[in-house]
C-alpha cells in the first residue's frame, strides 16, 4: 500500500503542476485578450487572405483563403527541407568517406570543409549566399547561357521546361523497367544462393532502365522537346526570362546554405559510423575472398549504418527546423507566409503561432517515425 502511494503521489503532483502552469497561461492570455477586445478563434482560416506569395507549389493568389496560404507555406517548407536533405546526405556521405581517404589532399580538404562550415552560424551563411554570392550574379540581360539553355541571374535560375507528348507511355516504360529489374534481382539472388553463380545484375539493370524508355521514344510515339527561356524586356534596363522554369534565388540560397551546413554534421556521422566498424570485420571479409567493393557493401556498410542513422535523423530534423530562417531572405516558407504575413494581417498571434508550432512538431515527428522505421529495418535482427 505504502509502496503504491509512493509511486502515485509524485506523478499526481507532476500532472497537477503541468495543468496549473497551462491553466495559468491560458487564463492570463484570456483575461488580457478580453480586456483589449481581441477575439479568440480559428474562423479566420476560411477568410480571403488578400495577399500574394512569390512562389507556390499549388495554385494560390490573394483570393484564396488563409488556410490555403498556410498550405503554400507548409509545402514550401517541405520542398526546401526535402531538397536540402537530399543534397546534404549526398554531400555528407562523400565528405565523410573523403575524410577517411589515405590521400592527404582529399583528406585535409574534407576536414577543412567540415570545420569551416559547421563553425559559422547558419544565419550568417544564408546571408552570405543570398546577399554576397548571389548578388555577384549578372542581371538577366548580361547572363551568359550555360550549355546554351541555363541562365543563372540575380533574379533566379532559369532552366528549360520539358514539353512531353504521350508522357504516359514514357512513364509506363519506366515503371515496366523498374518491375523487370526487381524481378531479375530476386532471380539473381536465388541463382546465387542455389548455384553460387553471380549474374551481372548491375549491367542488366542499367540496360533495362535505358533501353525500355528509349523504345518508348522509337515505337511508343513519345516525343520530348524543350522550352528554352527567352529574354523579355520590361523596360530599358529591366529584363526577365520568359518560358521555361524559374527557380527563385531565395530558394537556391536557402537550399545551398542548409545543405552545406548540415552536410558537415552528416559527414561526421558517416565517418564515425565507418570508423566504428572493427578492423577485424574488414580483414575477415577479405580473408573469405570478398573483393573491396563487396567488403564495403556487404560487411562494413550494414554495420556502419546502425551507427550512422540515429544521429543523422537528428540532422534531418535540424535541417527542417532551420529552414524557418528562410524569413530572413524572403523565401516564402511557413514562418514567412503564415507566422509572418498572415499573422500581421489578422492579428491572431496566439492562434497562428500555435498552429505553426504544431505543424513543425508534426513534421519533425513524421521524419522521426520514418527514420526509426528504417533504423529498425537495418538493426541487428536477434534470432
Amino acid at each position: 500500500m505504502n509502496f503504491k502511494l509512493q509511486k502515485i503521489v509524485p506523478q499526481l503532483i507532476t500532472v497537477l503542476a503541468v495543468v496549473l502552469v497551462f491553466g495559468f497561461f491560458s487564463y492570463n492570455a484570456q483575461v488580457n485578450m478580453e480586456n483589449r477586445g481581441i477575439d479568440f478563434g480559428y474562423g479566420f482560416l476560411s477568410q480571403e487572405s488578400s495577399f500574394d506569395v512569390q512562389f507556390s507549389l499549388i495554385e494560390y493568389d490573394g483570393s484564396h483563403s488563409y488556410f490555403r496560404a498556410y498550405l503554400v507555406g507548409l509545402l514550401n517548407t517541405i520542398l526546401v527541407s526535402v531538397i536540402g536533405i537530399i543534397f546534404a546526405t549526398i554531400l555528407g556521405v562523400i565528405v565523410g568517406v573523403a575524410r577517411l581517404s589515405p590521400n592527404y589532399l582529399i583528406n585535409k580538404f574534407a576536414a577543412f570543409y567540415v570545420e569551416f562550415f559547421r563553425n559559422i552560424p547558419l544565419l550568417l551563411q544564408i546571408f552570405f549566399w543570398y546577399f554576397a554570392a548571389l548578388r555577384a550574379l549578372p542581371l538577366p540581360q548580361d547572363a551568359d547561357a550555360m550549355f546554351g539553355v541555363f541562365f543563372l541571374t540575380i533574379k533566379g535560375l532559369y532552366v528549360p521546361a520539358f514539353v512531353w507528348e504521350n508522357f504516359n507511355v514514357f512513364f509506363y516504360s519506366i515503371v515496366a523497367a523498374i518491375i523487370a529489374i526487381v524481378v531479375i534481382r530476386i532471380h539473381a539472388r536465388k541463382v546465387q544462393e542455389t548455384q553460387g553463380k553471380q549474374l551481372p545484375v548491375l549491367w542488366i539493370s542499367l540496360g533495362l532502365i535505358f533501353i525500355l524508355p528509349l523504345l518508348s521514344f522509337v515505337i511508343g510515339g513519345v516525343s520530348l522537346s524543350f522550352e528554352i527561356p527567352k529574354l523579355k524586356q520590361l523596360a530599358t534596363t529591366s529584363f526577365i526570362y520568359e518560358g521555361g522554369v524559374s527557380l527563385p534565388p531565395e530558394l537556391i540560397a536557402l537550399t545551398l546554405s542548409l545543405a552545406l551546413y548540415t552536410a558537415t554534421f552528416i559527414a561526421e556521422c558517416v565517418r564515425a559510423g565507418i570508423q566504428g566498424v572493427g578492423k577485424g570485420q574488414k580483414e575477415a571479409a577479405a580473408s573469405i575472398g570478398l573483393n573491396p567493393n563487396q567488403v564495403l557493401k556487404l560487411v562494413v556498410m550494414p554495420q556502419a549504418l546502425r551507427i550512422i542513422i540515429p544521429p543523422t535523423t537528428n540532422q534531418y530534423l535540424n535541417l527542417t527546423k532551420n529552414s524557418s530562417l528562410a524569413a530572413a531572405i524572403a523565401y516564402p516558407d511557413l514562418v514567412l507566409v503564415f507566422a509572418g504575413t498572415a499573422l500581421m494581417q489578422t492579428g491572431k498571434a496566439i492562434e497562428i503561432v500555435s498552429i505553426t508550432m504544431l505543424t513543425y512538431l508534426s513534421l519533425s515527428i513524421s521524419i522521426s517515425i520514418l527514420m526509426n522505421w528504417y533504423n529498425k529495418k537495418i538493426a541487428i535482427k536477434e534470432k
Partner: protein
Amino acid sequence: MFKYLKQLTSLVAMVAVLFTFTTETMAAKKSKTLKNTQKKGFVRCGVSQGLPGFSNADAAGNWTGIDVDVCRAVAAAVLGDANKVKFTPLSAKERFTALTSGEIDILSRNTTWTLSRDADIGLTFVGVNFYDGQGFMVRKSSGITSTSQFKDGISACTNIGTTTELNMRDFFNSKGISYEPVAFEKADEVVAAYDAGRCDTYTTDKSGLAAQRTKMTNPDDHIVLPETVSKEPLGPVVRQGDSVWEDIVRWSLNAMIEAEEYGITSANADMMKSSDNPAVKRLVGAEGELGAAFGLDNEWSLRIIKQVGNYGESYKRNIADTGILPDRGPNELWTKGGILYVPPAR
C-alpha cells in the same frame, strides 16, 4: 476540437471577468499605463528599425524623427522630461504583438491606420502625424517614368506584414499585370535586395521611399514614380482599454499641431503666456485646467512645446532639413492648404 476549446476559453473568461470586476471599477479612474509609466520613470515607445526622418538612431544611439517626437512629447507631458523615453526598435511583423502584449505603451512607427487594425486586434489609433500614400521606386536607367509602363513579370520588393503587401496586390490586379512579390522581414534587407537588382521596383509608403533612397549606394540612380496608389495615414497607436492613456497620447500630438497653428514655438512658448489669445494661453498653461482631465498638471503642453517643439519645427528638423521631403504637401496646416486639422484644445 476547436469548438470545445472555444467553450472552455469563454468559461475561463467568465470566471476571469467576475474576479476582476470589483477591482476594475476603482482602477479605471486612473490610467494603469500612466501609473506604471510614472513609477518606472520612462515612456516605453516602439519605433522602426531605422527609417530616416521618422525614427532613426544615430551612431551614439540617439533617436530622432517625427515618430520619435510623439513619444518625446508624451514623456515631456507625463514625466516632465522629453528624454525619458525607452525606444524599442520593432519590425513590421513584431510591432502589434509588442504593443498588445504590454512590452511597449506607445507604438509610433509609421503605422497605417486601417479599420481592421483599429477594430479587430486590440489597438486604438489616436491620430495621424503623417499623411502618406504608397508609391513605387525604380532605377532611373530603366526609363520607367510612370506605373503605366509596368509590364507582366515585374518583380516588386517590399516588407512583409504591411498594408503595402495588400495594396500592391490590389494595384497590380486592377491593372491586370502579373508580378512577382518578394517580401522581406526587415526594411534594410528590402533595400539591399532592390539595390542589388533583385527587383525591378521597390514599393512602400512614399515617405519611406524618399527616406530609404538616401541609404542606396547611389541615391541619384533611383526615382520615385509620381503615382500614389493608396491612402496611408500614419499615426501613433496605443493598446485598447486604457482611455486615459489614449487621450494623453492623442492630445500630446494634437498640442504639437495646434501650437504650430497658433505660432507657438519652442523659442517663444514662455512669452506666449502673456498672449491676448485665450486659445494660446490655454495651450501654454496660463489659463484653464486642461491637464487635470488626464491627471496631469497644467503645464503639460507647455513642456511639450518647449522641449520637443511644435509640429512644424519637428517636421523641419527631421524631414525637410534632412532632404527627405522638403515639401510638406498634405502635411501642411489646414490654414495653409494642407489637411492637418486637429480638434481645439479647450
